[in-house]
């Protein structure tokens, strides 16, 4: 009985970490540490971005658990709290039961409120425009567009629209807004405005993590993350380039 309880706790930890967007090696490391204090004769953990498997062998009898992970989001706060929890658990501050309760609490923590994220998306878009040599006008355009797209993203994801379609619609909105402003004020910098707005969407971190995973010998994770990053980049580029094509057909110049 004991072995199953421990295994179900350990795999729950891994599941919450993966759903919060933790790296593959971190999940493997944490789950291995949690299982290692119980002196099982053998433990094997296999983690990819979408699935986690843990198998424990005790006195020749293997026990295995699998969890499928869907919809990953970025929750760095949960990763930090779980890191603390697993350290406490390894130091035997918590029993398995207590740790599981604490884990449920961590899993239920609410993210920052929508309106804060709404304003912050706008501000970050504006500041990225400034970083890529945009002026005051570009800053304002990106500020408004950033807030608008975070609202659109929220509405679409609440209705269960698939992630790639959401990205396509959002980047199409960005392209249309920027190009229609550019049509009337051609002196503004198109590069700064588009880059500022799509900076919150592009998969730079995912691509770098893909290479990190490959360096760390997590070959399957590395490949799947790289393909994911490339597909996201492609979707965004398609969404942005449609309005640009229309703008060129209407006689605008880049």
């Amino acid at each position, binding site marked *: 009985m004991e072995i199953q309880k421990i295994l179900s706790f350990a795999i729950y930890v891994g599941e919450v970490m993966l759903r919060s967007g933790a790296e593959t090696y971190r999940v493997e490391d944490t789950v291995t540490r949690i299982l290692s204090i119980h002196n099982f004769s053998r433990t094997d953990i296999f983690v990819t971005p979408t699935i986690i498997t843990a198998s424990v062998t005790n006195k020749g009898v293997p026990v295995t658990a699998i969890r499928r992970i869907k919809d990953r989001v970025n929750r760095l706060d949960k990763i930090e709290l779980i890191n603390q929890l697993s350290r406490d658990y390894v130091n035997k501050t918590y029993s398995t039961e207590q740790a599981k309760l604490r884990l449920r609490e961590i899993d239920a923590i609410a993210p920052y409120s929508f309106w804060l994220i709404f304003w912050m998306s706008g501000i970050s878009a504006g500041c990225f425009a400034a970083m890529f040599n945009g002026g005051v006008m570009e800053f304002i355009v990106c500020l408004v567009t950033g807030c608008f797209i975070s609202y659109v993203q929220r509405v679409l994801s609440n209705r269960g629209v698939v992630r790639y379609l959401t990205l396509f619609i959002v980047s199409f909105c960005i392209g249309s807004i920027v190009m229609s402003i550019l049509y009337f004020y051609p002196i503004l910098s198109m590069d700064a405005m588009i880059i500022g707005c799509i900076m919150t969407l592009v998969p*730079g971190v995912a*691509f770098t993590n893909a290479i990190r995973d490959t360096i760390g010998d997590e070959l399957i994770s590395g490949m799947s993350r790289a393909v994911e990053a490339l597909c996201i980049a492609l979707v*965004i580029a398609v969404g942005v380039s449609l309005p640009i094509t229309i703008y060129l057909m209407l006689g605008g110049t880049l």
Partner: protein
Amino acid sequence: MIIQFISSYIATLSFCIIFNVLKKHLYLCGFVGAVGWTIYYFLAKHCLLTEVFSSFIAALVVTSISNLLSRRRHAPITIFLIPGIIPLVPGIGLYRTAYYLLFKDFPQATEAALTAFQVSGVIAASITIVAFLPAIFTPAKK
């Protein structure tokens, strides 16, 4: 330069809130990102180094700072690392690659793709280097 520092500070900080970093780390995360971007900008625009080399130096500094901070504040390194490398990672490069491919501008697309690949390669490399530096200089375990 000062505008670059301030805007990258605020941009990184807002990104941290979107990524749900705990409140007590927010100002430090912004600082890490701003330092990385300012170093990159200075090297690339004023010292005229290549994009890849500037990213490498900036990422080394970002990784070392995040390593120090994570020890100091007992938090996993990811909390400081992800916000820190956000201004440096080649998300825009990947977007440009796909964009040029759609407009059939193959030479530009190849260039953008290779640069994006190199930049994320050197960032990943610098993270690995900093992670294993202590292991190189400590005596091997028996």
